[in-house]
């Protein structure tokens, strides 16, 4: 009887140790995944998750999109050209991602902000010149990836059937795919 109890106690302890080791391992993998976050940048896993999230969201109406994910420096981390899309379409996706990253806002918001007749706090702001910058694009469909008030990347989408508004919705869904990692 005593032997049985001893065996039971050791068994429980063993299970506990195995579970704890597993949990620790999981935590370490997560830490590793988030490693680039500590350096204010997105990781390759995150870039893939964001792109997949956007592609999945756009699948609902059978759109085959091009997606680009750029990092903190505005450089491409991931780019996929949709079936039948041109190289120009793919590059436009990159430009949307870059524009959202560098101006830290959805390209739709940036468009309003840089309009010829944009007004802010009752005062005219002439930021139209920002549209002259290289690598920017005056189209909706780019979303920034915001972490601690800084844009650590951006995602851009082109080619969805619903036009630029749908591009933006898909890009937004992409960012939301890693929302739990951006807290």
């Amino acid at each position, binding site marked *: 009887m005593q032997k049985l109890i001893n065996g039971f106690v050791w068994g429980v302890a063993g299970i506990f140790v195995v579970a704890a080791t597993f949990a620790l391992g999981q935590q370490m993998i997560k830490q590793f995944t988030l490693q680039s976050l500590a350096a204010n940048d997105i990781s390759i896993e995150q870039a893939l998750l964001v792109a997949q999230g956007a592609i999945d969201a756009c699948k609902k109406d059978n759109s085959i999109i091009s997606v680009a994910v750029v990092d903190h*420096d*505005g450089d491409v981390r991931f780019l996929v050209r949709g079936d039948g899309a041109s190289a120009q379409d793919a590059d436009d996706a990159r430009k949307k991602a*870059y524009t959202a*990253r*560098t*101006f*830290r806002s959805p390209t739709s918001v940036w468009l309003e902000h840089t309009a*010829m007749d944009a007004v802010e706090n009752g005062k005219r*702001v*002439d*930021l*139209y*010149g*920002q549209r*002259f*910058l*290289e*690598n*920017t694009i005056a189209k909706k469909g780019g979303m920034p990836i915001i972490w601690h008030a*800084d*844009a650590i990347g951006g995602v851009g989408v082109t080619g969805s059937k619903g036009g630029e508004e749908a591009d933006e919705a898909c890009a937004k869904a992409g960012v939301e795919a890693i929302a739990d990692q951006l807290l």
Partner: protein
Amino acid sequence: MSRISSMLTAAAACAVLMAATQSAQAQSSSLTSEQAMAAARAVQAYAKNDGSNPSLAVIDRDGNTVVLLKGNGAAPHNLGLAQRKAFTANMFKMKSIEWRDRTMPGKPEASERDTPNAIPLGGGVPIMVGNEVVGAIGVSGTRGGQEGDTAGAQAGADAAAALVKRLQASN
């Protein structure tokens, strides 16, 4: 009599020629790295009050880069934008914010916006010594938007111009 007058004419021509040579030399004087560094430091002093980390570019009158400085945590477009603001101020010999307003669509000067590399955004200021433009500075990334960038660039331009004037006075 005619000999004296011809001598006088020759002397006058000589004087004119010498003056022309001198002014040509003054014109070719370029912004030194010390002057450009002083401009950069003045912008950084402005930014410290402002609580921002702007990027900046200082170019000489020929458009050559003398100082380039990327601010901490700058967005990807900031440094390139600072360069284009400096280019614009140097090219059109006025603040880029003034040039922006001058070249608004519909105005006669609007086609100036087709100039490659020029950008209609505030933050570029020419470095003036008297009526002469000896270079320009462009700033991007202060807190105050285009007005703030212009104020920061002006502080830099003033610092550089003060050094140029001091050098000219000592010569």
